[in-house]
């Protein structure tokens, strides 16, 4: 009797000890997990609450866009196909750089903590100086794959002017969810940094579904 009682007690003691050890380990693991999640920098999903006003969403399918050779900046981005280059998305933000450099523009994008050169389709823009299609000078997006959707930009510099194509990708399949919201977000991002934007600064007449009204925002350095 006595003997078995002692054994039970011993077993109980050992079980308690093991239980304590387990709880300690779980606690340590919880601590490590929390510390990692809190210490790494996190990307705040860009808030879409302030929506583009409805007047910006008129798409005129019949508008005749400016020709690429009329302007120093690009009007479209192109996909390279077997039959040649085919225009896909409209350029919707333009930076007349004046006293700033193109890398100042890129610095603002980079400060948003985006992924540079994410998983994306290869697109080109027309450079009228060299009369060639060029790959972007920089591209960036909120997420590397964008399986839950993302804001995505491609940037070119031609003749001292920055041309940016900005859009929201749909989750995974990367259809265009919106050009107008993306243009507005870019304007907000730069205004926060003290740049001055004209929301519909220039009419390129490059209207495009689902919601691009043919105008590009023009963003200049702020008066300091």
């Amino acid at each position, binding site marked *: 009797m006595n003997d078995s009682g002692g054994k039970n007690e011993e077993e109980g003691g050992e079980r308690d000890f093991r239980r304590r050890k387990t709880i300690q380990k779980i606690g340590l693991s919880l601590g490590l997990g*929390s510390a990692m999640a809190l210490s790494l920098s996190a990307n705040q999903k860009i808030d879409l609450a302030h929506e583009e006003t409805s007047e910006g969403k008129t798409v005129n399918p019949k508008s005749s866009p400016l020709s690429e050779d009329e302007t120093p900046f690009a009007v479209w981005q192109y996909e390279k196909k077997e039959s040649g280059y085919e225009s896909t998305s409209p350029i919707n933000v333009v930076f007349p750089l004046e006293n700033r450099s193109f890398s100042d523009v890129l610095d603002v994008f980079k400060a948003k903590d985006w992924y*540079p050169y994410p998983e994306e389709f290869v697109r080109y823009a027309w450079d009228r100086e060299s009369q060639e299609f060029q790959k972007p000078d920089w591209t960036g997006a909120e997420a*590397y*794959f*964008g399986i839950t959707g993302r804001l995505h930009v491609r940037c070119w510099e031609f003749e001292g002017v920055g041309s940016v194509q900005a859009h929201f990708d749909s989750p995974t399949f990367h259809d265009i969810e919106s050009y107008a919201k993306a243009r507005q977000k870019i304007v907000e991002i730069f205004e926060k940094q003290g740049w001055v934007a004209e929301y519909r600064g220039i009419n390129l007449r490059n209207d495009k579904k689902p919601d691009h009204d043919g105008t590009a925002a023009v963003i200049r350095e702020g008066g300091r």
Partner: protein
Amino acid sequence: MKENSLLELLRQPLLGKKKKRTSVGIVYIFSISCLIILSNLSGDSEFLLALTETVFGELDRLRTFTIILAVVSVFLSIIYPVWNRGPVLAASIGITPFLVGSLVSGHFVIEMDLVLGACAGSLGASIATYRTAKTEEGNRKKDTINSLVFSSGITVFSLISLFRVYQEDIFEVETGAVFGFLFLVFGLSFLVYVVLDIL
């Protein structure tokens, strides 16, 4: 010697129950990592671009494929542990595409894609823990405890990350967040079951 240690790794219960299945999981992770790296580097290197175009026709096709693989991995990290347990490998399947993406772009930040992968990985690890607890013999339950310890860590990581990404507009009804949240809720219920069972 080297072969031995590799075999030992395949026997590690944190990676999986059956050696053959564990190696399938490892090969999967290795292959998608290579594809993602190839896809990224093809943007710069003419040689790799030529290779990609020979195999896939065009770079855009490979890129579509890797994006779809990232989504598939999220779901595979839940399916794998049902098939072969292995909490660490299950979670790795969900997270690897995003970590490799960060690696090749030289940039890491907690964003919704990664969080979704981590949430799915947590559910996967919890399922593995539950299945191990259900079947492990003996009263020490060493494998179960290891699995539980890992699962709790990654679950709390995912939970905090999900809240951080949504700090400003918490749980705007968006597919990623809803899925992530559901994964975590299911995962936690498995973990709570195991904790009540063994402690």
